[in-house]
């Protein structure tokens, strides 16, 4: 087993390290890694700045994570804020907090609460997400997408007018998927098999194949049924 032969990396306190290949990485405190790092398991608590790509089969991040590169993860748990300049590719991502990516996000499962911002394409097998603020994505392409509002609507309404960040909303140009169930979403075009447009949505155009349900509190400008 090659993996056994790889060294572990343990850091506590304020540290700087180079990248490399590791078996287990465990980091607490304020640290910086210059260079690409790959590990079997990667756990990080605190503030981390990473200049390079990161790849790990299991990843747990608590705190503030700043990444200048691409992220590849098998199973990923994120509590806190992750800001990335590159792409995210992974199997499963559990998110409690904020995920901000400039590139694309391609995962099989994205589950959690909070806010995500994806500059490019957000592609996933399954997304179940509870909104706590303003989430944005260029395009979303999925098999199943469920968007719910979990943050307090009162706060959202109160602060949303003043501070746009507090507005409870998902914004996307295009959403495509087999099953789409939305709340509080603003999109230009939604295309899918079964589409449910819930409360607070504002959609430019909906194209659907099998079924469409629109909540009375939603606004849809154009509906179109396609295919069989």
């Amino acid at each position: 087993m090659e993996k056994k032969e790889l060294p572990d990396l343990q850091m506590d306190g304020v540290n700087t390290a180079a990248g490399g290949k590791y078996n287990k990485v465990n980091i607490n405190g304020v640290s910086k890694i210059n260079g690409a790092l790959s590990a079997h398991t990667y756990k990080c608590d605190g503030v981390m700045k990473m200049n390079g790509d990161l790849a790990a089969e299991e990843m747990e991040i608590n705190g503030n994570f700043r990444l200048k590169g691409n992220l590849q993860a098998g199973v990923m748990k994120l509590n806190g804020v992750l800001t990335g300049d590159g792409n995210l590719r992974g199997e499963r991502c559990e998110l409690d907090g904020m995920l901000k990516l400039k590139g694309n996000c391609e995962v099989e499962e994205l589950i959690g609460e909070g806010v995500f911002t994806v500059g490019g394409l957000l592609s996933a097998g399954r997304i179940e997400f509870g909104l706590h603020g303003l989430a944005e994505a260029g395009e979303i392409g999925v098999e199943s997408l469920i968007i719910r509002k979990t943050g307090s609507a009162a706060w959202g309404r109160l602060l949303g007018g003043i501070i746009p960040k507090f507005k409870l909303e998902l914004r996307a140009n295009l959403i495509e998927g087999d099953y789409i169930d939305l709340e509080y979403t603003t999109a230009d075009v939604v295309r899918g098999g079964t589409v449910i447009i819930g409360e607070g949505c504002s959609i430019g155009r909906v194209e659907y194949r099998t079924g469409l349900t629109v909540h009375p509190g939603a606004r849809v400008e154009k509906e179109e049924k396609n295919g069989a």
Partner: protein
Amino acid sequence: MEEELISKKDLLDETGISYGQLYRWKRKQLIPEEWFIRKSTFTGQETFFPRERILGRVQHILQKKDDLSLDELAGKLSEPLSQHQVILTVAQLRERNIVSNSSLERFGRPDSEGMQLTFEQILNLFTVDLLLSKGELNLEEADRLYLTLGVHTPGFAGKNWELFFVRKMGVSFYLMALSGAELAFDEGVRVVSRLSLADLTEQLKVRLS
């Protein structure tokens, strides 16, 4: 030469796959990123695909996906060329009908039944044979193509190339360029065929497997 495109919606209608499947395959890298062509239409941005290639690929995935997992399939589709360790003899090529008899007779020497060919050599033969069987080449042109491929493909060192076969005023010639190159020709030129290494490899791999 403009390749015929198909919109995403038409693709789904024609093949019966869903948005989810398409995105999944893209995530698994079964469909290359370059095939997603964005164009603005009157309804906003739409995605288009090169028609022939995407339809072929979708058929291929649909056929194979019951036997193989998507990851395995992705591995098969994206193996770089250098990993093709296929070596077949001329006799095997004939037997398995990968290259037609007449091409083999023309390009294989008579005493070469047992001669072993590498993947690259088979690919060259396959390319010539493909164009011949489509009736786009005459035999003399085929000879020239075979020579051209033999001389120039090593120079691309595994990089993806495209082959253009063009004719003007009855004179024909070949051009090879790195994939993705936009070539412009003058008015009287007719592009008879345009083939890319990736497509050829894929077609040949399907035949070989």
